[in-house]
């Protein structure tokens, strides 16, 4: 434990157990928009390196329209260091326009092209008259992680593609931001369910990622009545950008609600902000809560008969999952947080506000919760392995890196963020009322399977 303490004090920059991709991971934000294709000016392996942590080993995901293997790439090589790779890139874009029936191309570059000073903006400008938009975004890995890359891609779309002025504003339209496609393993199902919920409340949600969305939805962005940011810090910059470009106000809700308490709070917040029908919203909440507790009740005998109860948890995850799931576990399931690790290298300016969000918990002393911001995914592991859990009924929520530790120590575990695991995620999400039930199920099942099951 001493070693851990001095590591934290020394503010080290290294990391292990990678839970983020580098900036190039932003290409997944492009790939999540139907028929948008990135063109990479990168080394031959850069895509593969982000792919594993963000897609393949993150719940068995792959891109939809264009599988990863057909992403055009210059495969930057030694000769390009000497002579520059700009000409080769130009030729590649030219060929790509001929071969891919995409609606938009985004040229991106990685570390090496950036260091040798290839100018992708100039290359993109050369294609201003192409049959579809050709954008550019610099994504060198040494500048940031995939969340930074995500922001670069969205900024590129706003700056280079969206019109200077909004059209006719549709007050009911809400653009949904904050959920990062692919990186958030549950993104697809979360957005589908969220879309339904918002629609039932009387809004017209505009979601750019996933099935049947695409450029038509990008085009609608400027005309929204408001933007909704569902995350503690990601995409706030994008909402601010849209506010200054189109004057679109935004509602910032820091968690993706899971379970009845938080979901009700979220619905009320949206209803209030957008001036929606309160009676309808309350009716929705009442009905959904009743259904939630109906299903809880159907398993209550199994959960509370001759079983040791998991109670205390570590979470080692992205900021949004850490906050959203902590709120559910504390407020609805009655668990107690042991330590919370947020491992996506959150910019320091957001640390204070995120700590505040964790105080909104129905606990006697929410101030005492230990929240650790780090880029080092392996730090939590050090704690879990070295702390005495003899008398505690501990659960770990995290990534498949943590899964092995939990397996060896026989601690119940549930994957909740990237890299989720070498399994397929399907339609899983912990969003909303059903999401709460799903997480409850996963925790109790793994506890039983790990032998925390029946009392002796």
């Amino acid at each position, binding site marked *: 434990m001493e070693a851990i303490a001095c590591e934290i004090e020394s503010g080290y920059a290294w990391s292990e157990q990678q839970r983020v991709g580098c900036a190039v991971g932003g290409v997944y934000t492009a790939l999540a928009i139907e028929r948008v294709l990135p063109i990479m000016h990168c080394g031959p392996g850069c895509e593969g390196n982000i792919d594993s942590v963000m897609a393949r080993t993150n719940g068995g995901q792959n891109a939809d329209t264009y*599988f990863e293997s057909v992403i055009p790439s210059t495969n930057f090589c030694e000769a390009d260091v000497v002579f520059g790779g700009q000409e080769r890139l130009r030729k590649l874009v030219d060929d790509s326009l001929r071969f891919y029936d995409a609606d938009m191309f985004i040229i991106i570059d990685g570390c090496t092209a950036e260091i040798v000073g290839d100018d992708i903006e100039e290359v993109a400008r050369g294609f201003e008259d192409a049959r579809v938009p050709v954008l550019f975004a610099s994504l060198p890995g040494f500048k940031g992680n995939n969340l930074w890359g995500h922001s670069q891609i969205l900024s590129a779309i706003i700056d280079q593609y969206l019109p200077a002025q909004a059209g006719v504003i549709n007050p009911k339209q809400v653009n949904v931001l904050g959920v990062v496609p692919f990186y958030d393993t549950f993104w697809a199902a979360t957005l589908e369910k969220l879309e339904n919920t918002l629609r039932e409340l009387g809004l017209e949600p505009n979601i750019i990622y996933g099935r049947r969305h695409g450029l038509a939805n990008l085009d609608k962005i400027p005309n929204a009545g408001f933007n909704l940011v569902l995350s503690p810090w990601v995409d706030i910059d994008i909402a601010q950008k849209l506010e200054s470009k189109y004057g679109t106000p935004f509602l910032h809700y820091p968690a993706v609600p899971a379970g009845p308490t938080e979901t009700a709070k979220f619905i009320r917040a949206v209803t209030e902000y957008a001036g929606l029908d309160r009676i309808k919203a309350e009716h929705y909440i009442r009905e959904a809560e009743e259904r939630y507790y109906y299903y809880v009740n159907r398993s209550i005998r199994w959960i509370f008969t001759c079983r040791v109860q998991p109670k205390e948890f570590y979470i080692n995850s992205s900021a949004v999952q850490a906050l959203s799931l902590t709120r559910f576990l504390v407020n609805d399931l009655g668990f107690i947080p042991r330590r919370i690790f947020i491992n996506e290298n959150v910019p320091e300016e957001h640390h204070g506000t995120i700590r505040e969000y964790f105080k909104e918990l129905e606990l006697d002393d929410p101030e005492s919760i230990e929240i650790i911001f780090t880029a080092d995914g392996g730090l939590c592991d050090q704690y879990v392995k070295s702390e005495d859990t003899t008398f505690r009924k501990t659960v770990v929520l995290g990534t498949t890196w943590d899964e092995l530790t939990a397996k060896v120590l026989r601690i119940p575990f549930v994957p909740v963020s990237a890299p989720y695991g070498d399994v397929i995620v399907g339609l899983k999400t912990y969003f909303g009322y059903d999401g709460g039930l799903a997480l409850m199920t996963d925790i109790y099942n793994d506890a039983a399977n790990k032998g925390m099951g029946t009392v002796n």
Partner: protein
Amino acid sequence: MAIDLRQTESETREQRLGSITGYDGTLEDLTSRGCAGCLKNKLRDFQTVSSCAHHHAINQLAGLDGTLVVDHAPIGCAGAQIGFSVAKNRLPMAPGDPPLEHAKVVSSGIDEADTIFGAIEKLKSTVRDAYRRHKPQEIYVTTSCTSAVIGEDVYSAVLELREELGIPVEIASGEGLRSKIWASGFDSYSHAVSKVRFGKPEKKNNTINYLGFAPSGRQFVDPLFERLGLEVICLTAGATREDFQRATMSVASWGQCSSQSNYICSVLEQEYGVRYLQTHLPYGGIGFERFFRDLGELTGKADIAEQVIAEEKAKYSEQIEALKSKLTGKRALVALGSGFAFEYTRVLGELGIDVVHTIAYHYDPVLDQNNIDSDLAVVADVKELKLNLDVSVNDAQEMETNLLMKRYNPDFLLSRGHEAAAWAYRQGIPAMDSEIGFVIMGYRGLVEFGTTLVELLGNTNFVRKFGARYRSPFTREYENLNPFSFYRKEEAM
């Protein structure tokens, strides 16, 4: 060409062996150009993403027992290691094996300021901290595109840390930009680990070395080697320092394929006189017979070898005939790494399947072996079995492979690891990613493989219905291209 372990780093495959990633023609033509430099590489103007040497150097090093890898790179470059760590921990465990652990890969996290001011101090403190946290037996420092382009003197740091920590600290260079062939990363791993783990052999033992990714399936083959009085040492994921030391005392080595295994096998032959059996790989029945005969001769137990061959053949002949009756005449397209592409071409032929085209992800016209008199495995097949067909070489260039799938419209595709199977399914063609290593060795392996194929083709409802929904996201111009349209006009080295 001899390998020089005194060099800091290994040379790339292009430099050492004249290996290529672009070719189309026939197998006979390809294999007739067997000298480094005799085979002209075809470069492509249009390319898609591929894979990188760096990544493969790290995953091999981190898979060994007791190692820790410090990746001197920005955070992203080690992002794919989780996939390997998970795979490693799913390998079957034997009694007495150490508890499961993740691969230990630490990134020094080169950032923007470091690209201007350098990051050697950061690297050193990363190595020290990582050592303190994990207490590994060995540390390997991998270099990256970025550390190379900003001109980091990693080797000096490595020497300093070796002194300071008192454990082996070694450099493994595998910058993705140096080689188009990801197998060059296997060489970086091999070079580094050879320097650290091999030492003077004390004697000769009745052991044989197997080089490969994983020891999966060894239970099927151990008894065969025991008949020749040989114990198999697996220099695979999980291999210990002791395994490597014992390997220098073996009578022979062979590898899962020439891409992953040839460097270490060559070092063992060159430095310690451990014979490298590289001409006949033991896959399928034909491969096994030739391999086992060679081994019988080498160990002076030719009669026992013949006996084992006859027994194995008899044991599985009925099953093989049954499989052949179901598979004969089926048409296959193969897209695999350069070693397995041609091995599987032969094995498919043994089951009566017509391989219409084979794609290799790269091609080495020669290997590093000392015993130059022995042929490459694929050359042996051309000479001994008159194997010939249309072949091409592309480094997982899926846009090219897709056009080949379209041209040949095979009954199924056999591939592994680089998404060709996913594209095949999407377009309504059944496909499977193949097993490698012990599992497909010998007649038993042939039956296992053949059974999987029969299952694959036994019910194609899923692929038919899924494939029917496919709408090409490409242009008509692309769909009408000749598959070999992406080459740069002038052929270059």
